[in-house]
Structure formats: structure tokens, C-alpha cells
């Protein structure tokens, strides 16, 4: 662990707090939370429902701002970036994989993967999209629409879409939550293989301990505190 600490973290949370105003009063989801994520490592955040895993993820990805403290991406405090700069950061360096896939229903598999590449203005969008769909084993189903694909296949399209932009960080929020065990297992295999091949940083939210065990580090979010879990 100590050798890792000497490397410069890619994502850094410094004394981060998040609280909400509810009808019952102010609720602190967590406070003084500190976290370093190194380039290329895979990290699982586990915890029970409502512990604030998704909120932590959205803070780390710059989708939300902390009530106190700072989140730094590559040394740059995210709260100092405006909306446009954060959108540019997401576009160039971050990808997401969601529990419910979130594919556009009117686009076929190829177009779904091509979309972020086209938004980036890349001229090789078509070639890249085909390449990544082949990587996830859907080379023969390029022109299928989401409604014509199974849940597992839809998630594979989403994975291809996430990797196609060659992100430095991949955030995955319960990626197998909507899939049966076998399909989930296949998806996991694919996700870790691609992660290994591309060297991207993977931040995973799950309450599946088996899935978490495959990550290099595991953090348990409980009662507003983040604790390293050692196997």
C-alpha cells in the first residue's frame, strides 16, 4: 500500500462532506471523508442501501458538489471548474456504466456506441464503435435495437460505449444489478478484462461482495465513514 501512496492520485477526495436538508432537519450523509484513487487501479465501494454510495460516486465524478471539502481530478479541484469545463472533462476522460443500461431506444447498437464518439467529433467513430462491439462479442448484432437485445446484451453495448471513448476513469454503478447471476458473471469478466487491457481506472459501486473481491481495493461506506476492507 505504501508504494502506491507515493504515486500521484488521479482522484482525490479531501475532507468531503455531504448533507441534505429534509423535512426532519439537516441530515449528514457523510463528513470528513478522504480518499485517494490511483491511476489504473480498480476500487469497489460497498455498503448497504442508502449509505450514500451513489452520492459518493456522483461527487467523485464531478456530477455533484460536496457540502464541504474538495474533490480533485488529476490535481484539479472540480469545484473550481464551471459546468462547461466539467462537461468537457466527462467527455474526454470519464465514462459511466449504469445499472439500467440507459441506451437510446431509437438507435441500434452501433449508433449507441458511436454517439459519444460523434459528440467528441471523432472521424473514426464508426470504426471504433465496431471495434468495441466486437470486443464485447456483439459484432454480429450491430444493427439490433435495444428492444431486440437481452439485458446482458444491452449492458454489453453500454460497456462498449463506455470504453469506446478511451476514458481514464470508468465509473460503474451496480453494473450487474439488473442481470441474472450467470449473465452478471459474464459481464464482470468482460468488464475486468477490458479494464486490464486499457489500463483505465475503475470505480465500482456494488453490494455484491464477490464482485467487490475482484477489485484491487475495497472500501466500505458505513455510518458516514469510509473504511478500507482487507481480505
Amino acid at each position: 500500500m505504501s508504494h502506491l501512496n507515493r504515486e500521484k492520485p488521479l482522484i482525490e477526495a479531501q475532507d468531503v462532506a455531504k448533507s441534505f436538508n429534509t423535512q426532519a432537519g439537516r441530515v449528514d450523509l457523510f463528513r470528513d471523508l478522504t480518499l485517494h484513487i490511483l491511476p489504473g487501479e480498480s476500487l469497489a465501494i460497498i455498503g448497504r442501501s442508502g449509505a450514500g454510495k451513489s452520492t459518493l460516486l456522483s461527487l467523485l465524478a464531478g456530477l455533484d458538489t460536496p457540502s464541504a471539502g474538495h474533490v480533485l481530478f488529476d490535481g484539479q479541484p472540480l469545484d473550481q471548474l464551471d459546468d462547461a469545463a466539467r462537461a468537457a472533462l466527462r467527455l474526454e476522460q470519464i465514462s459511466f456504466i449504469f445499472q439500467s443500461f440507459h441506451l437510446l431506444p431509437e438507435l441500434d447498437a452501433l449508433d449507441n456506441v458511436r454517439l459519444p464518439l460523434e459528440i467528441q467529433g471523432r472521424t473514426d467513430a464508426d470504426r471504433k464503435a465496431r471495434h468495441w462491439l466486437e470486443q464485447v462479442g456483439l459484432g454480429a448484432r450491430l444493427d439490433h435495437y435495444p428492444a431486440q437485445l437481452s439485458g446482458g446484451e444491452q449492458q454489453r453495448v453500454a460497456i462498449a460505449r463506455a470504453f469506446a471513448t478511451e476514458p481514464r476513469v470508468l465509473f460503474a454503478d451496480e453494473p450487474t444489478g439488473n442481470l441474472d447471476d450467470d449473465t452478471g458473471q459474464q459481464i464482470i469478466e468482460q468488464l475486468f478484462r477490458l479494464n486490464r487491457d486499457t489500463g483505465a481506472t475503475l470505480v465500482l459501486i456494488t453490494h455484491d461482495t464477490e464482485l467487490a473481491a475482484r477489485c484491487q481495493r475495497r472500501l466500505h461506506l458505513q455510518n458516514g465513514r469510509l473504511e478500507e476492507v482487507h481480505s
Partner: protein
Amino acid sequence: MSLLTRLATRQLWSQLRTTEWRALLLASWIAIALTTLLAVLGDRLERGLLRESAALLGADLVLSSSRPIAPERLDGLPLDGIRQTRVIQFPSMVGRGDDLMLVSVRALQAPYPLRGELVTEPPGTGIPAPGDVWVEPRVMTQLQLQPGDQLEFGYQPLSVSRELLGSPDRGTGFRSFSPHILVNAADLEASGVLAPGSRANYRILLAGPAEAITALNRALQPTLADYERIHALSKDQPLTGNALGNALSYLKLSALIALLLSALTIVLALRRFSLGQHTRSALLLNLGLRPGQLIRVYLYQLLLAWLLTASAGVLTGYVLEWSVYRWLADLLPQALPTAHWLRWLSGPALGLALLVLLGLPPILQLARIPVAHLLRGDAPPRDRTALLMQGLSLLLLAATLLAFLQAPLPALGLLLFLLLGGALFGWLAQAGLQACARPLARRLLLGRLLLMRLRQQRQWHRLQAAVVVMLLTLLSVVWVSRADLIEQWQAQFPDDTPNYFLINIQPWQKDGVDRFFAERELDTELYPMIRGRLTALNGDPIKPQLSAEQQDHNTLRRELNLSWRVERPTHNPLVAGQWWQPGDAGAISIEREMAEELGLALGDRLGFDIGGVRVEGEIRNIREVVWTSFRPNFYIIFNPEALQNAPATWITSFHLEPEQRGISRELLQQFPSLTLIDIDQVLDQLAGWLQRLGDSSALILALSLGCGVMLLGVTLLQALEQRRFESALLQTLGVTADQARQLDLLEFLLIGLVCGLLASLSAEGVLAMLHQWLLQIPPRLHTELWLALPLLAALIFVLIGWLIRRPLRLDQCYRLLRAG
């Protein structure tokens, strides 16, 4: 195609699967079609009747008079460079064999017209030669005339030489809509149809260079007598002042309802649409689309939707316009010119305003969706600016609609009526629903659930009921009144109600006419008729003694028909004072409403100017007059001694059974100068107008009903998730799918029945008011409405409910509940 337009196109097509997007497209389509119809038809009417008024007038300037115009009338006025001609127009009965027809005759001198042209078949120039007559197609058809046939015109048979297809200078008012015939002025005298005192309109048409006309107009104004008027191009009556203008306003008001419903449908469809776009927007933003780009995607989508609906709408508008024009064509004085091409853009322009004004606020809000919505399902922050913008857009839209309808006040009135009526009936319906459901709650298994459902959906029920009740009310009022208003009005008269008026009986013809009727055992009574103007009250000029409103009273603005009598007319009961005794010179009798409105009482002395002679009388009694009795009726009746020597013509009315029609023919053969007016024909013409107007507006209202049904669908969509969730919950708790369906059915059936009953009630109310105030006949109950409306409303609700809310399977229920 750029990425953004490609995304927009894909979205447009794929969202066609959603009901809200389909409703939005349909609403916009109908709004554009209706606007196109009204803009194009309105423009054609205006261009036909107003803008091309030079051709319409047949001249640049017209001097019109209710008395013959002396040959030297224009002497001393600046006439350099000005051409002139004279026209006499009057109603008359013309005939062929046993058939008689009431027409408007124009007796012409060459040159005619001075502006515009006569369109005839066979084509040609000039005016009818002496002995010839040109008649309009309606006359040809009704009297079954062929070119070359003889038309009886007083003593003078005329030969039909041409069919008259179009002509300017049709005169004003109702006479312009009667079928016309043109004759040569030289035939008038021989025909004997025109006598002193005839109800004719005499005109001098004038045309020339603009400055000369202006100078002449200026010089003519101060010389105008009471009975003369000037019609000039610049101050021709506005379109709204005549029957066609009123018809157009009526159609526009009918359309207002459809436009409002479309706008409301679009607002609600957009609301639902944008709610459904949160995840998608968050995803697109997450994939790197900038908010500006996202706004552009949705704007492109709206623009594409607009392009689609504008094309379909203009095409539909074209078909509608063609059908309504066909409907009205044979009632129109002449073929209408085509509309200005810009008018074809009115519908699309309004559609664009609707979509962009109403669509922009929710779209702007989509661009502010947090991407974290994808992770946590966060709803976007409630945005006051968006609400404010939507409010402003609605106001702007209302202003656009009112401006477009060009009748801001009636439209505003109708708007208020709809809003207040809608609020009232919405509230009543909701209260009625609760009242009906409470007893059911005790008896039916589903009753308690129904009561809960009604409470939960009450705000949507209110809106749905308001829309359905107001729509069904308007539709049934138009439907019922279009068919039977005139019929009912006529049916109230006893069978022997006079159906002919005979006017222009000269003093020397009076005895002959009396004898004519006596020989045929017809019960008629001739009344003398003298024209005079009310000028003085109790010895002083009357106007300064009255309020401004009274000064504008109908009886003070024109010459009145006065009469004299020994006995009280039997159909005029007295409401105050006594009828006079012989020798009671200077006594007069006044009609009740006139006395009340001018504040006149028994004992007041009224002064009249009768052909330059001043005559005075004292009010001795007040009479009740039923103006619609089709008998000669007068505001003022004198004791005979005061008026006996004034120049009078005589008037009467009588009743002929259909088999006695020959009598009217004999009468005109013996006395060609008499003017015989066939009341049935006049009423038939009027009924024809109302019927077609009713048909056209029923067509528009049927489209409004279509809009209403769409709106209903969209309001049901708004709470669809809540309904599905509730239904899923009930099913997992043990309610069967059938019971869940029955609950829906019960709800829709109940609200439909309540709305139908309320609509029947309000339609009866409006019809009763029409009967009471407009027709002054006792209201009657329309049982067919009480049956049809509840059934129709229930059918509408059940059908839409069934279309929108298919039953859920149990596995779907479970998934729905798990997803929260």
C-alpha cells in the same frame, strides 16, 4: 445531416410511439388546419367584399336615397371629369306560369357599371336591352327558366337573354343577398311595378379621378338630406357590419375553442413529454452533449414536428376551406377572388408560435437536468423561471389568438364564459362524482376503492369535466339550434298567420284592392302608412331633452312609419290610457317599448315632420305590439283627423294556403305596381343561411370535439404512472386484474355520465335563453339531449381510458413496484 439533426429526427420518429407525442402532433395539426381555413376563407371574403369595394360599389362614389332623386340633384356641384349613371333597386315578385319569386330588381341606364364588370353567360358588354332581362342562376333554377323564356314583370313580360353570374353594386343589407335581376330602366314605366312611395332605393353612381371624387364628396356632404347617404370607397362599411362578416366572426369564435383546446393539449402533452425526457437528457449530457446542443436537439425536433404538422395542416385547411366555400357558394353574391398567398402561411405561423412558445420553457428545463439523475433519479429543481416563462407564453399566445380572430371583445367574452363555465362545471362534476360514489362505497366491493380513486384524481377530473361539459354544451346547442330554431320559431305561429305582406298600395288603388280581397273572402285590413320623423317633445326639439343613449334610439335615427286609425288594431292590446273617441283630434297612441325607452308618458306631446309639414299629437294611450306577428305594426298611430290628408300609401298582410297561391298571381296581374313580399321565401332564405352557418360551425365544433378528446387523453396520461402504480399495488394485494379493470371502467363510466348530465343541463339552459330572449318563445325540453349526451360522454371516457390504460399483467405489476 449533422449529429444534432440526426438525433432530433430519430427522436421524432421513435417518440411517435408515445401517446403524448402523438397528441401533440395531432393538436398542432388541427390548430394549423383550422387557422388556415379561417385565414384563407376570411381573406377571400374580405377581398371579395371589402378590399375590392370599387368593383363592389360599381363606382367610386355612390349617392343613395330612399326617395326618387331629382334630375337636377347634382347641379352646382363640381362634376368636371366625372362620369355618372343612375340605378333604381327594389324588391318585386316576378313570375313564370304559376310560380312567383321574390327578387331584387335593378333598373339600369348605360353606362353601367362605372367600376367592375357584369359577368354574364353568354358573355358580353353593356346592359340589358329594353324588353330583355338578365337573371341570376338562383332565379333560373327556381322558376325553371331557359334563355329566351319570358319572365313576367308587372304588365311587361321580359325576355331572359342572359344569365347573370357576377355583378357589382348589389346594394347593402339583406337585399344584397336576395337573388337579383337586371332590367333596362326604360322598361320600368311600362311594367308599372314602381309607383310613388315604393320601397325603392335610388342611386347615382359616380366615377372619376381621385381628386375630383374627393372634391365632389366634400361638396356633396353638406347637401345631404335625412334620407340620403353616401357610400365612398374609403368609408365603406367594415366587413364586420354585414351578414357575411358576422358569419365569419361566428366561425372564428367556433374555432377559438378548438385553438384553445389545442393549445392546452400541447401544454399538457409537452409537460408529460418533458417529464419523460429527464433520463434521456441526463444521458445525453453525460455522454458529453453540451446544454446548448441539447436544447438544439429538442428545438430541431419541435421544428421537424412543426414541418410535418404544417404540411398536413395546410393541406387539411385547403380541403376544409374548399368544402366550406362549396357550402356557402350559392349564397354568396359572386365568386370570391383567391386569397393572398401569405394567408396560407397564417396556420403554419400560428403553429410555430404554439410549439415554440409553449415548448421552449420545458426544453430549457431539460438542459438543466443534473447528470446525477442517472444515478439517483434526482428530479430537476423546480424552476420558477420556467413556470413564469410558460405563463408569459400562454398570455402571449392568447393575445396572438385574439389578434388573429380580429374580434377581441366577443372572443374575450367567450374566453371568460368558457373559463368561468369550465370552473363551475368542473367543480360541480367533481362534487357530483363524490355524491354518486358514496352510496356505491357501501354497496359495492370496489366502492371504497372507487371513492379513494376519485379523491386521488380529483384535480384531473375537474379539468376533464370542464372540457367535456363545455364542449358538449356548445356542440349540442349549435346542433339543435341549427336544425330547429327557425322551425320552432315558425311553429309557434297559428296556422292563419299572414304569410304575405302587400305594400305600396296607392290611395286610388285602395278600394280596388279591398274589393279584390273581399271577392275572395280573404280577411285583410288595409292600414295607411305615412313616413315622418319624430322631431319635438312638448313643443321643444326632442334630442336635447334626451340622454345620449336615448338620442341614438332607433326611432330617432330614421323616418318612422306612421298610421292613423279610428279603431284600435285588435292585435295591439292597450297597456295604459284609453283609445280615443271620434272628434278627439290630436290624440296619438304609442308603442310600449318606444315609450319606455324614450321615457315618454301619457300626456306628452310629440311633434313630427311629415314631408316638411309639422304635425303634433298628445299621447293618450300605450299599446303592446308583437313585432313578429306579421301584421302591419306601427310605433305611432294617430287619430284619423290629424293625418287623414297627409300623403299615404296603404299596407296589409294576409294568409294564403298553398293551394291559394294563384291568388297572389292574380293580384299582381291586376295591380302590377304593388309590392308583394312572400314571407315564407324571405324566411327560407334566412333559414338557408342559418342552416349552412350552423353546418359550418358544427364542422368546426366537431373538430373541437376531436381536440377535446385528445386533451382528455393527455390529461389521463398525466396521472398514468400513479394509476399504474396503484393498480399494481392493488393486484399484488389480491385484487384480480378484472377487478382492477372494473375499477377503471366504473370511474370512467361515472365521470362520463355525470359530465353528460351536466352538459344536458347547461345546453338546456343556453337553449332556453335563446328561446326566451332571442326568439321570445317558451323554452322546451330536449329529451334527446338528456339521453344522448350522458351516453356519448360515457363512451368517450371509457374509450379513451381503454385506449390509454391497458391492463397490467401480474409480472409487470411486480416489476413496476420493485422499480418504485
